[in-house]
C-alpha cells in the first residue's frame, strides 16, 4: 500500500510559526504550558481531551490556540477520557498527528483504549500529568497513575523539569512515528505542571525540520477497504488472497519487538535533538556523579532533579554517592542500566508509586536487570511522596546517609531488604 502526502498539507506544514505569545527563546512557563507549546510546535492536527486536575491547563492552552486561529487543528471536546482516546485513535488511523493529555483516574478510565492505541501501533502522544490514584480521593502528585499503565504497551518517558517536557513532547512524535507506538510523556503534577521555570521555546521551523510529516502505516483508502483489527485468532491463517496473516501472538511479538527496538531510537532521537537544539532531554537515563560512586540513587521524574542537590550535599560529607535518573521506563533499558550500575555496592531506588503487595515498580525492575546481569548489589526499595507528601532534600540525604552507614557496618537486616522503606510516613 502507498500513501500520498497531500501537497496542501505540506505547504501548511512548512509555512507555520511559533504561537504569538511564545516566540522562540527564553520564557518562564509552567509544565502544562510547556507541554501545550510542544504540541503546537509539532503541528498537531487533532486534539481530544477531557479536563482533569492537574492536566486541565494543557488542553485549555491548546483550545485557546485553536480558538484564536493560531493552530489549525480540530479540537474535539469529549465527555470522557475513554472517548478522548477513542477520538485520538480514529484520527491517528486517518493520518492526523494527534495529542491528548490526562491524569490519574482519567488515565485509568482510558485503560481499555490505551491497549487499542498501542495494539493498533498508532503514534499518539499523550501528556500524563502524574497524580495519585483514588481512593482516597487526591488531586496531588505521585506516579501511581502511569505506573499502573506500565503494561499497556506504550512508551513511557519521564521528565525532570519543564524544559524536558517541551523537548520530550517534540522527541515523542519523532520516536512514535518512527516505531509506530504511542508515547506517554509523564511529568509530575503541580511540582512541574503548575510551577513556573525558565525554559527555551524552540523555533517552529527548526522543529518542522526535525520532525518530518506523519505517514500512517496503513493509509485509509476507499478503493481498498480494510477492517482494521478484526478478530484475530491464535494461529496464523491465510486470507482470501492466499497470504499467510499473523495470528494474535505474532502481532503481540511485533508490538513487543517495536518497544524493545525503540530503546535505540529513543537514544538516537535524543542525540539528534541535542545536535539540533543544543540540549539533551536525558536519553534513556542520565547519570550524575556515578563514575566513582559506591552507592547510587535511582528514581524518575522531578525527584531526580532534586536528588542532584542531595548527591551534592552528601558528596560534601564524603559519601561516594551518585544518581541515575530514569527517563525511559518502558521500554526498560535493562542492559544499559545494569552496565551503569555495575560495581555499585548499594542501590537506593525511590518510587512515588507502589506495586501493592511487593515493592516500588522501579525497584522491582532494577533488581531484575541486575540479576540477569549477574550483579549482586544490595537494592533497597524506598517509597516516598505518595499523594503529594512533600519530599525534602534533607530527608532523602539523611535516609541515604543512614543506609550507607548501615551498609558499611553490616547492619542491614532482612526487614530492610525484603520490605519497602517508607520515607517520612508518619504511621
Amino acid at each position, binding site marked *: 500500500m502507498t500513501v500520498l502526502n497531500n501537497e496542501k498539507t505540506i505547504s501548511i506544514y512548512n509555512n507555520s510559526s511559533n504561537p504569538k505569545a511564545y516566540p522562540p527563546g527564553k520564557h518562564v512557563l509552567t509544565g502544562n504550558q510547556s507541554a501545550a507549546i510542544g504540541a503546537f510546535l509539532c503541528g498537531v492536527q487533532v486534539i481530544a481531551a477531557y479536563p482533569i486536575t492537574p492536566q486541565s491547563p494543557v488542553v485549555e492552552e491548546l483550545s485557546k490556540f485553536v480558538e484564536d486561529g493560531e493552530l489549525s487543528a480540530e479540537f474535539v471536546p469529549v465527555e470522557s477520557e475513554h472517548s478522548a482516546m477513542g477520538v485520538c485513535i480514529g484520527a491517528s488511523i486517518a493520518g492526523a498527528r494527534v495529542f491528548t493529555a490526562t491524569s490519574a483516574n482519567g488515565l485509568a478510565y482510558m485503560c481499555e483504549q490505551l491497549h487499542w492505541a498501542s495494539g493498533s501501533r498508532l503514534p499518539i502522544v499523550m501528556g500524563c500529568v502524574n497524580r495519585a490514584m483514588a481512593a482516597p480521593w487526591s488531586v496531588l502528585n505521585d506516579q501511581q497513575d502511569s505506573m499502573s499503565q506500565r503494561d499497556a504497551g506504550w512508551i513511557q518517558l519521564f521528565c525532570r523539569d519543564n524544559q524536558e517536557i517541551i523537548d520530550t513532547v517534540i522527541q515523542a512524535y519523532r520516536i512514535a512515528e518512527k516505531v509506530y507506538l504511542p508515547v506517554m510523556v509523564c511529568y509530575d503534577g503541580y511540582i512541574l505542571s503548575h510551577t513556573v521555570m525558565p525554559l527555551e521555546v524552540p523555533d517552529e521551523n527548526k522543529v518542522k525540520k526535525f520532525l518530518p510529516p506523519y505517514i500512517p502505516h496503513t493509509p485509509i483508502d476507499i478503493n481498498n477497504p480494510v477492517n482494521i483489527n478484526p478478530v484475530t485468532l491464535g494461529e496464523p491463517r491465510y*486470507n482470501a488472497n492466499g497470504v499467510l496473516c499473523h495470528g494474535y501472538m505474532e502481532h503481540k511479538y511485533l508490538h513487543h519487538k517495536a518497544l524493545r527496538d525503540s530503546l535505540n531510537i529513543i537514544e538516537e532521537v535524543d542525540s539528534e535533538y541535542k545536535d539540533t537544539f543544543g540540549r539533551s532531554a536525558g536519553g534513556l537515563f542520565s547519570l550524575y556523579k556515578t563514575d566513582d560512586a559506591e552507592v547510587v540513587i535511582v528514581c524518575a521524574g522531578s525527584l531526580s532533579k532534586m536528588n542532584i542537590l542531595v548527591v551534592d550535599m552528601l558528596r560534601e560529607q564524603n559519601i561516594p554517592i551518585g544518581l541515575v535518573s530514569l527517563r525511559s521506563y518502558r521500554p526498560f533499558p535493562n542492559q544499559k542500566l545494569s552496565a551503569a550500575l555495575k560495581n555499585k555496592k548499594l542501590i537506593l531506588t525511590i518510587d512515588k508509586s507502589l506495586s501493592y503487595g511487593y515493592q516500588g515498580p522501579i525497584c522491582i525492575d532494577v533488581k531484575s536487570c541486575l540479576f540477569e546481569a549477574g550483579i549482586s548489589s544490595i537494592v533497597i526499595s524506598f517509597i516516598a511522596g505518595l499523594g503529594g507528601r512533600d519530599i525534602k532534600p534533607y530527608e532523602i540525604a539523611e535516609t541515604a546517609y543512614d543506609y550507607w552507614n548501615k551498609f558499611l557496618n553490616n547492619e542491614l537486616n532482612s526487614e530492610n531488604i525484603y520490605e519497602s522503606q517508607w520515607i517520612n510516613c508518619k504511621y
Partner: protein
Amino acid sequence: MNTRDCGHIISGSSPAKGEAGKTGEWRTQRPVLNREKCLAVKANKDICYQCWAFCPECAIERKPGGPVDLTYCKGCGICAQICPADAIQMENEYDSSEQRKND
C-alpha cells in the same frame, strides 16, 4: 510523493470470500432457499439481493437463486433474517444430512 510499505504491522482483513479462513467448518445450520418465494428467482432479474449484500462471508453468489458456497457459509442466519420475502430457512445440519451427501 512519499511511499511506505505497511507490511503486516497491524491485523487487518478485507471484504472477500475466505478472508476469515474456511468458515464453513463453524456451521451448525445452513440456509435453504425456497425458490417459489425468492423475488429475484420469481422475476428472473437482478433485483433484491439483500441476502448477497448482507452475507458477512460473501458466500452467496450474485445471481437469481445464487447458490451458497458452503465452504464459507458459517450458518449465521443473517441472510434468512434480512430476506424481505422470507425465502430463506435455516435448517439444522443434522436434518439436512441427506442433502449433504449431494453437496
